[in-house]
């Protein structure tokens, strides 16, 4: 009898994901898996995510609802273009929240509770535009709070520095702020990593283990590209501008550029490694952190 490895392929993990599920996207963005979801034409998803990484999935036609605190843009646009367009036309349902409201709902799930109270958002429009939030009086002092319902996640997809094959994950420079909230609230978690390390390296610094019992570990060097991965590379601004420009044109009716973008980077490739070949080693190595 042996201890079982949880090392998995992109295909194995994408097979967990069914149309209509709630999928959480961490930060740094697990772009290898994001692209694989788009490539597999999964649709009707509820996405917990933010920024341009969220925008990819919307542009890719995968999303019908977002639970998002932030979909900012950059590269000349104030708001992620596909998100903005789909939200304005009503194609996309937006579960409006702020970070503290979202994490309260995630913590409720992780703690096995139907709700958690939160003060941030009292006095704002959040409970008006999001009917799942209830204004409540606390049962002890009668203070006004928001009751945030438990938010459930079917699969959380995260990107990190390294992991052993048993699902012990270690981040360099700290995990993204929301990743551990997502992990704790998710039924299953798959973590892309830059590098697989031996179990002995995990044990040598157990405090550095940020996630244990990941359900799958996927080897994906440069797997956050075109975003950053702490300790490894910075974001690829040129590539992101390419995407943002194409997506911005698409919502004005000019679909050519975004179609070409997805064809070249997603549909014509079948795996993350093939994607990296398209990007090219010269570009990748130019993204060094320091």
């Amino acid at each position: 009898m042996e201890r079982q490895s949880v090392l998995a392929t992109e295909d194995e993990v994408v097979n967990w994901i069914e149309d209509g599920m709630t999928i959480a996207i961490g930060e740094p963005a697990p772009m290898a898996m994001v692209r694989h979801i788009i490539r597999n034409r999964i649709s009707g998803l509820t996405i917990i995510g933010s920024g341009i990484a969220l925008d990819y999935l919307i542009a890719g036609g995968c999303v019908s609802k977002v639970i998002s605190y932030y979909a900012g843009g950059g590269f000349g646009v104030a708001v992620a273009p596909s998100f903005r367009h789909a939200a304005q036309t009503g194609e996309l349902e937006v579960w409006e929240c702020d970070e503290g409201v979202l994490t309260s709902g995630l913590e409720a799930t992780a703690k096995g509770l139907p709700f958690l109270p939160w003060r941030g958002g009292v006095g704002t429009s959040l409970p008006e535009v999001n009917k799942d939030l209830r204004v409540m009086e606390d049962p002890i002092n009668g203070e006004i709070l928001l009751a945030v319902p438990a938010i459930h996640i079917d699969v959380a997809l995260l990107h990190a520095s390294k992991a052993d094959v048993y699902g012990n994950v270690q981040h360099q420079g700290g995990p993204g702020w929301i990743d551990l909230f997502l992990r704790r609230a998710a039924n299953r978690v798959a973590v892309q990593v830059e590098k697989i390390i031996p179990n002995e390296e995990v044990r040598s610094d157990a405090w550095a283990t940020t996630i244990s019992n990941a359900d799958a570990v996927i080897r994906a060097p440069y797997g956050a590209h075109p975003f950053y991965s702490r300790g490894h590379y910075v974001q690829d601004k040129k590539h992101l501008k390419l995407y943002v420009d194409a997506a911005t044109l698409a919502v004005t009716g000019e679909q050519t550029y975004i179609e070409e973008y997805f064809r070249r980077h997603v549909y014509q490739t079948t795996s993350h490694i093939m994607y990296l070949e398209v990007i090219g080693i010269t570009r990748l190595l130019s993204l060094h952190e320091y």
Partner: protein
Amino acid sequence: MRYSSVDNFTVQELMAVFLARQLKDGDHLQVGVALPVPEAAVRLAHIMHGPNMELIFLGARMNVHQLEQLPLPEFGWDNRVVRWAESYSDRGHRFDQVKDWYRRVFFIGGVQVDRFGNTNLIGIGNDHQRLDFRGPGSVGTATLTAHVGRYYIVLNNHTPRLLVEKCDFISAFGWGDGGPDARKRLGIPGGGPQLCITPLCVMDFAEDTKCMRLMSVHPGVTVDDVKDATGFPLEISDKLTTTKIPSLEELTILRSRVDPHGSLRS
């Protein structure tokens, strides 16, 4: 906007220096992404008079008073800033110590800001599911503004569409419908918005009404310029002044140690 003063500083530099002067040693300073003026202000204050300030970026806590340069990040999510970390401010539980946020100072923008300092990052329109302009979302502002000791509204523009009578949606509660007890009535502990700083002027909130009030105009700007650019009737402070320009020392440190690449001058 570039002033043709002897120093030839830009309005962004003016705003950054003004804001730096509002910050006190010991403050914990939290700057969101893509806000170069507050980013510069906290660095400048830290160097000039804040050896015990704590700078919080991207979940990392740092005190970098002793560094020669504290350059602005190249883009919002530039993780290289975490190389200065002494600890991570959340370690996967961002909101587990809001009790101590009375020491924190925060900076906020918006797609709308109303006369009572309520701010809107949700969007513009009547129907939330079919907005005329969909904003980026609340980020952490609903929570942060509820708890931080004080915060500053910092805007890149000053127009009647931005500074409005009433926000279509409120994502961060400022002074509600006005009055000094607006926050207390709802049990919101944070100290609320203190000032609104724009490319034209600085506004505070009148003690009795908590209405936005013109406190100082930037050099070369008239009161009428500000009134015309504001979407609500603006009170005028009886202590109205011109915003004090940067000193030679402030501008030198700002340019040499905080903004060597000239982000605030472009």
